[in-house]
């Protein structure tokens, strides 16, 4: 269990390195690695959310191209590569399947914040892996409910307020990163 944990956490860090390489060097090899891993999963996610194969493929290419163009906006102290890719895919999905806009919260000033603290990055990537383990360990019925919510099969009034997931640690970690950002911005 622990060794799988560490392996997956290292995997998370590898994806962070790939995005760094894309941002710094326009590294196509690093992009290809990300693509091979994530594109089929994004396609699967979109199809599970109700799009057909062709639509999902086009949308996935779009999502991955967006990743390249926004690589400099990725903050690994606040998200894993998978989390970030999910948010890009979700936004494209709303656009494509529901033809709606999705109002986004005000951005925190990007562009002049300092390099994220490496210890913060490490902790967040590891805690995300622990969350993945917790989701895997949920009773089937409960996990299916959460998946349904993210695939768009439940309305907000059908979603339970209690997920049974330990979200507190990861929330506190992100909160800390936000506080640091706020402090630097002053």
């Amino acid at each position: 269990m622990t060794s799988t944990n560490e392996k997956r956490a290292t995997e998370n860090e590898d994806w962070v390195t790939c995005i760094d390489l894309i941002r710094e060097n326009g590294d196509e090899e690093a992009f290809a690695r990300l693509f091979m891993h994530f594109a089929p999963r994004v396609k699967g996610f979109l199809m599970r959310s109700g799009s057909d194969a062709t639509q999902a493929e086009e949308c996935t290419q779009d999502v991955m191209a967006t990743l390249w163009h926004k690589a400099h906006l990725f903050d690994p102290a606040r998200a894993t590569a998978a989390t970030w890719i999910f948010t890009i895919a979700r936004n494209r999905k709303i656009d494509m399947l529901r033809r709606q806009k999705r109002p986004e919260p005000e951005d925190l000033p990007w562009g002049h914040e300092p390099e994220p603290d490496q210890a913060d990055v490490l902790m967040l990537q590891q805690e995300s892996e622990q969350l993945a383990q917790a989701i895997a360990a949920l009773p089937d019925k409960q996990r299916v409910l959460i998946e349904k919510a993210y695939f768009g099969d439940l309305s907000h009034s059908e979603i339970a307020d209690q997920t049974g997931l330990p979200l507190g640690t990861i929330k506190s970690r992100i909160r800390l990163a936000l506080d640091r950002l706020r402090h630097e911005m002053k």
Partner: protein
Amino acid sequence: MSDSNIKHHVSDALLMAYSAGTLPEAFSLTVATHISMCDECRARLGALDCIGGVIVERCDAQEMPEDSLSKTMALIRKGRRDEAPHARRGSVNMPVPLQDYIGGGLESVRWRSVGMGVKQAVLPTSPDATARLLYIPAGAAVPDHGHRGTELTLVLQGAFRDAVAHFGPGDLEIADEDLDHTPVADIGEDCICLAATDAPLRFRSMLPRMAQPFLRI
């Protein structure tokens, strides 16, 4: 812009639906505006987005066509780096997502009177829910009403009190169909709220019921 005095936050269920991207646009606007004012909910959203990331990771992989990587590289070469040089910063009571729907700050709102000094402005969103700004003069009340669906009320300026609690700037009230309430604005300052509903309100007295078609609520 983040206020640690905020006491009433987005519920887990609403925040998860926002993270999943399944809320009606008017609700998303209200949640996005609250998050712009509240780092606690911004961090909670980050944790919920992380669930989304795990779900993408766990998804059954669907094979992509062989030429999809080269097609994506072509897309990349056609496009350009998203510069997003300096993020726009809203004002204290008017975060950026809301400004985008008003087309400016509070001074750009085209208010319409709904009587008793109360004014409203309906914002352009998809028809599955309605978002509107409410202007309640200091000390005035919004007519007693119940809901069929859910009503979200976010305070932008001033404060109001109803049977449930007292709500100040950044606070979000989530009212479901069990709640009949009469929000009353505090004496000190006119109260401005962003309110979103996914079903028409039901007013208790005859007069507002007649006015309802004009209110578009």
